[in-house]
């Protein structure tokens, strides 16, 4: 299995993601420049990552231009064929703009950019990102965004809930999902979701910023660990024990 990290010209978390996947998690990882038009080297055993940043400056609407970039047609085809795609922050915004994930990310309710540690609660185990964690696990992971308020219309929201597509909700340190713990006004504290086919994932918080002892926080590693194990398990390799931190 290998990871491909898409580099839009304004991506700025691409190097962080490559470092964590490659050096910390020990995975094969390659960068994919936004002018690429095909993902021929990637199969259903691999995973495409859309990292954080400001894809094309995002002066219009976050991700609005990125969805039209050459590489995104390839990513859309890849996803529609069942390939695994994971967008973080700007990557999540782009996946929503591209129609690969339902809903949209709006300007934070206080109209300000915010960067700080927040807490997340896993909502399901039926996901590539959380399959190795008990439902209700609380993770400390930072956010850094101006447009992170998840929104979907009532019918879409109902569908998300009926299909168990909500992966993370914002919570407090004790795991309570409250208004005070919602950093941006997201609908029902939603911080991360997947598509109906459960192969496309998006989350606003940055697990790659919480994956090393150096940085004093390794909670984010549980998400990558889960992702890697879920892919490996579909390769019919013996399932490895889940290490604890």
């Amino acid at each position, binding site marked *: 299995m290998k990871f491909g990290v898409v580099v839009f010209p304004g991506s700025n978390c691409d190097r962080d993601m490559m470092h964590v996947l490659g050096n910390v998690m020990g995975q094969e990882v390659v960068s994919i420049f936004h002018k690429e038009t095909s993902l021929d080297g990637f199969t259903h055993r691999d995973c495409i990552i859309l990292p954080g940043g400001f894809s094309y400056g995002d002066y219009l609407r976050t991700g609005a231009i990125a969805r039209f970039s050459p590489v995104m047609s390839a990513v859309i085809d890849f996803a529609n064929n069942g390939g695994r795609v994971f967008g973080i922050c700007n990557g999540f915004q782009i996946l929503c703009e591209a129609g690969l994930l339902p809903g949209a990310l709006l300007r934070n309710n206080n109209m300000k950019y915010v*960067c700080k540690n927040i807490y997340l609660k896993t909502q399901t185990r039926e996901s590539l990102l959380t399959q190795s964690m008990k439902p209700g696990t609380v993770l400390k992971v930072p956010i850094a965004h101006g447009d992170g308020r998840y929104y979907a219309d009532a019918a879409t929201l109902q569908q998300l809930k009926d299909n168990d597509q909500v992966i993370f909700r914002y919570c407090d340190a004790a795991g309570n999902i409250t208004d005070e713990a919602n950093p941006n006004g997201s609908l029902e504290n939603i911080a991360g979701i997947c598509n109906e086919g459960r192969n496309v994932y998006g989350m606003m918080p940055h697990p790659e910023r919480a994956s090393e002892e150096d940085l004093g926080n390794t909670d984010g590693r549980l998400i990558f660990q889960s992702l890697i194990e879920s892919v490996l398990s579909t390769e019919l390799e013996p399932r490895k024990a889940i290490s604890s931190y």
Partner: protein
Amino acid sequence: MSSDASLVPTTVETAQQLGLRPEEFDQIKKILGRVPNFTELSIYSVMWSEHCSYKNSIKWLKTLPRKGKHLLVEAGEENAGLIDLGDGLACAFKIESHNHPSALEPYQGAATGVGGIHRDIFTMGARPIAALNSLRFGDLENDRTKYLLKGVVKGIGDYGNAFGVPTVAGEVYFDPVYQTNPLVNAMSVGIVKVNETVSATSHGAGNPVFIVGSATGKDGIHGAAFASKDITKDSVNDLPAVQVGDPFQEKLLLEATLEVIKTGAVVGMQDMGAAGITCSTSEMSAKGKAGMKVWLDKVPTRQPNMKAWEILLSESQERMLIVVKKGMEAEVKAVFDKWDLHCTQIGEVTDGGIIEYYMGSELVGKIPAESLVLGGGAPVYDREFREPAYYASGKGFDMNYMQEPEDLKQVAENLIQSLNICSKKWVYEQYDSMVGIPNMSTNNPTDAAIIRIEDTNKALAVTVDCNARYVYADPFVGAQIAVAEAARNIVCSGGEPSGVTNCLNFGNPYNPEVYWQFVNAIKGMGKACEALGTPVTGGNVSFYNQSTDGGAVYPTPTIGMVGILENKYATMSLNFKNDGDKIYLIGENRDDISSSQYLIQNFEVQNSPAPYFDIDEELALHKAIKALIKSNLINSAHDVSEGGIFVTLIESAMAGGRGFNIESDPNVRKDAFLFGESQSRVIVTVPADRENAFINLMMKQDSEFAVLGDVKGTQVIIDGQKWGTVNSWKERYDNALESYLVAAEAEV
């Protein structure tokens, strides 16, 4: 010459309108052997402005220590200083002001300040990995101050966040002296391989000269000259002198620049900041002792029909000038094509040191490069200075006339909520402090931000510091304190102070009392830098922070300092760790409330001396703290600064979520013990089982030390009195600034 008005010989009146002095006009005529035309005069006006020439400061700047064991590049040699980190790596760092633009247009002024300082770093081939800033505003009750604060913070955030470099540390102060003239100082820190640095030079006749990055527009024309004037009511007419920033273009320029260096095609490179094409062409030529032909009509422009002088003086952002090895043009173009950036040849290097600017076939300006630059033909002035009256009156301050308040807890509550002490969370949470994942202080709070260096075991400790009230009180002592506090922060975080960049914000240098502040601050800074072994590698001078109504700002020589940690795991944090840890003070308490926030807030005394400071005591303190960290005898270290011991203790308590129980020092007045800002003191905590070893070590040190109490529970207890829970203090501390601004929003 032709009928173009800009080519007609000029007069002394025009020279004065452009900000030149009559004697400077005479000097230009002498250099050229003729009367300059308007284009040439414009070139001299910006290159000889204070901002580019340092004509009123260079004499004193040269007295600062410029050599040090860690230095690869001395001050003024390159765009920024360079510190040797070992392992073939170096750290490039610099601080710069963007005060004048921010006073008029806070959002763009601050944003382009951030963009400009990052360009200074990556034009040397270094990838910026951390940003810092130092901000000063007026009275926050004032609506314009709120507008400035919000605009500046959003400008810094939007630019830095999108560019993708974390803002890791900073300071924000409020004082009415900054009402008309806010200060916005931005610092960038980058890492470069020693053999991949690029110099801002030009040589090799026939080598092509390229402009890369954004197109050139009419924004920012005469920005450098504008920054060299007092701010008046008419300054708003200078609005086109404020540049507009585009962090996305800067991100592309960063990646393309670092990539083009690897082609080996680059002879020299300089970013375009103040005075745009004029400054980069002349400084690079002067440095390489070469000349240049520049075809201005080839420059990609944003609007048609720009005049030669407009193209020359434009301060449009996100541009670079690159001198390329002849024959390697294709390699360079390929890189900029990849990043979708302009890359256009606009000139070529010549022999002889003369720069010729052409518009089509017409020669519009012909100037010896050397005559334009600092260290060459730019004027150097010796300004007169005079001790101001307030200085002597401050010396007469006697704290015995200040009666100690009865309710010190109330005093403490007010102090913790004062804008100069309370949490700046409202500000720094708008900055991405983590992108690039180098910031080790996010989950492990430290006095100086700890920035790990990729692929090594090392880290940098970085900080910006200046208590301008101390400098105003006594420029010689106050500037020493600014340097000492920066170094103290680095030492308390486990680092070795290595180098300084300074941002010297002062009033009008033609005012002898302002110049007295400048001269004495430089002397103090030089003394402290010498003693601490931290040479000044570069920086900038911002004069004219002065308005017709409000007078000069406090002299504010902001110190940006970089320290090295050979082992990034040997970091010392400031938060209380365990119940039962002993709290010790290293350093000596004094009956001293001079220039403290407490004195200003409770007694409204504006004139008093700087707090007690002695450089030898400071050095002894650093030696002791380093020994304690090395011997693994302390669990936390936090330096005593604004708000005194009380605020230091509360900050460590809040960060650790733990209370404390202490006794005050019977040898000093209790208010001075709690809130005095006498210097060279650090609060440390010692694990109970290491207390004997701690005492043994400290007995061999020259620093005083005394036990204050211990870390305990959730309460704050002072001399047996319960002062409430740490959480209640945290609530006050965290919400003070925000409540100010949110209340204001609710009113609108």
